């Protein structure tokens, strides 16, 4: 998202000689017409962005410095919300939940999407069909994913029916330990979301030059060895891109939690966005909720900057 705006506009055909010749007058009129037309064309978008992006973004920062309650009384409190945030056990607990979730979710989705892409890349027969079958959950909503997986994970659901059959007792996927609950939630998000990363990995695989792989094969490298020694290292930029994107997605987890656990049991899945939602729409403490939003923004921004640094440093482009 940075390459674009720098591209210079086509400079006007050799800046015209100054002075009021009829030609320069005509040119000036044409320019003014072009500028007016341009402004009219951007006007609707400009209005929408001012109202619903620029103002809310500025508003988020401003609100986080206020005490803003449902009643509508607003008072400036400086950095109070932030000092309160840093002293709030609930905030640190939410951050811990989110981090643990990210640590479970990101490697899992990376592994599944990479494995899926590698399998599809090697698949000869029906590769198009398999690609569709693997991708199709991506079309569903997290809400629907949450509903079906709640049923699958339920104590009387199919997974526990299987566990019962081997005498392993019911596994409390959504009501057990924090690790188990967050891992279960991560599986749902991986199921719903890995199609995207899979396609990007697949494109990366398809773009790799054939000769390197061929040479390694003739040298007697096995498929497994070729993958880890050649294919995977060559995928590094792609892997890194997906790593950052999925980490950001992980930090924003909310929908599945809302549907499946409601942040519970005992707040073990009470993530950062869940805290923001609770503060804003359960306790109507808008200023404080805005501060939680800013905290999320800072985290995402840092991740994006790290990504840009590393990716753009790697390849001159």
């Amino acid at each position: 998202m940075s390459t674009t705006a720098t591209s210079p506009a086509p400079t006007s055909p050799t800046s015209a000689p100054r002075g009021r010749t009829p030609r320069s007058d005509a040119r000036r009129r044409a320019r003014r017409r072009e500028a007016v037309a341009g402004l009219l064309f951007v006007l609707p978008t400009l209005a929408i962005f001012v109202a619903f992006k620029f103002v809310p973004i500025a508003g988020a920062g401003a609100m986080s410095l206020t005490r803003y309650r449902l009643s509508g009384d607003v008072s400036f409190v400086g950095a109070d919300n932030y000092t309160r945030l840093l002293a709030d056990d609930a905030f640190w607990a939410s951050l811990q939940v989110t981090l643990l979730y990210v640590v479970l979710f990101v490697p899992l989705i990376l592994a599944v999407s990479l494995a899926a892409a590698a399998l599809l890349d090697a698949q000869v027969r029906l590769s198009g069909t398999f690609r569709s079958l693997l991708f199709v959950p991506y079309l569903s909503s997290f809400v629907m994913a949450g509903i079906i997986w709640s049923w699958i994970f339920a104590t009387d659901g199919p997974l526990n029916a299987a566990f019962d059959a081997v005498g392993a007792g019911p596994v409390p996927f959504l009501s057990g330990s924090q690790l188990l609950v967050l891992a279960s939630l991560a599986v749902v998000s991986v199921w719903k979301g890995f199609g995207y990363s899979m396609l990007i990995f697949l494109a990366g695989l398809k773009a790799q030059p054939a000769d390197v792989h061929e040479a390694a094969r003739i040298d007697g490298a096995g498929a497994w060895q070729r993958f880890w020694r050649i294919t995977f290292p060559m995928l590094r930029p792609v892997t890194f891109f997906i790593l950052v994107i999925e980490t950001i997605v992980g930090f924003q987890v909310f929908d599945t939690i809302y549907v499946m656990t409601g942040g519970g049991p005992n707040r073990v899945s009470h993530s950062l966005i869940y805290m923001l939602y609770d503060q804003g729409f359960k306790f109507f403490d808008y200023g404080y909720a805005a501060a939680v939003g800013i905290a999320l923004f800072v985290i995402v921004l840092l991740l994006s900057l790290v990504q840009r640094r590393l990716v753009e440093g790697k390849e001159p482009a």
Partner: protein
Amino acid sequence: MTGPVIAPASTTPPPAGPGPARPRAGVDVLDGPARRRGVRTGRGLRTALVTLLSLFTVAPLLMVVMLALSPADAPTIPYALPDSLTLDNVATVFQVGAFPRWFANSFVYATVSVVVVLLTAAMAAYALARKRFPGRNLLLWSIVATLMVPMQATLIPTFILVARVDGVNTLWGLILPTLANAQAVFLIRQFIRDLPDDVFEAARLDGAGEWRTFVSIVLPLIRPILATLAIFVFLWHWNDLLWPLVVGQSDEARTLTVGLATLNTETASTANVMAAALISFVPCLLIFVLLQRQIVAGILSGAVKG
């Protein structure tokens, strides 16, 4: 004309285009018999693995279908297979409570957004790519910069804004804030920038008016990117939860996703919940079946972020 490929944004992974196809295992004549056997078992293993993975993705969806079509009180999966399947649950869902309203809300939310986002973004993108006017680069940068701000970070101020103008529990309050779509502006602008100059030059020499040029020249040329974006904007809205959840609080104002999320926690039979979930998924599935190629192309061009 050759449809320009959208240059991937710097955040998208490098080579998305078709590279030289790699020769597949098993076609090499140098392979000895032993190696060929190894290749064959390797291929069998891979097919088994990809089948397993497909089971992981598809089985839950089949379970939704099965549960939605099982008669309400009959034994069904995971303990038994129902004797017969029925559409009763699907019909019931449409007759009960506010479900039809939720469906209509989602439909309006998604379709109105698609139309307005595409039209306004295309207009802005055209100007940003082809017109010189004061503040152009500043505007483009500002729009692109908003991509860095996650939607949740502005959830509270956006809600307050909408609440201040009495937009809570209204369709317009739901739709308006989601019309600011920076990805759409950015991607269409890249697309228009990469079109050959002479098209626009010809239109200018023909003396076509600005709006005529936009409608009869620009819009037809950018159809591919519009089609891709239409799919994704529709899916984003149709599947969206957080914003509809906070802005549509009354039963009447809920979208399908919000309604489904509440159904699941309230007392509704599994058969009905699954039928509702199935109905919510059908439009997405239809889009996928009909427009799979554009969806894949869209992801590879950077049209969506995770």
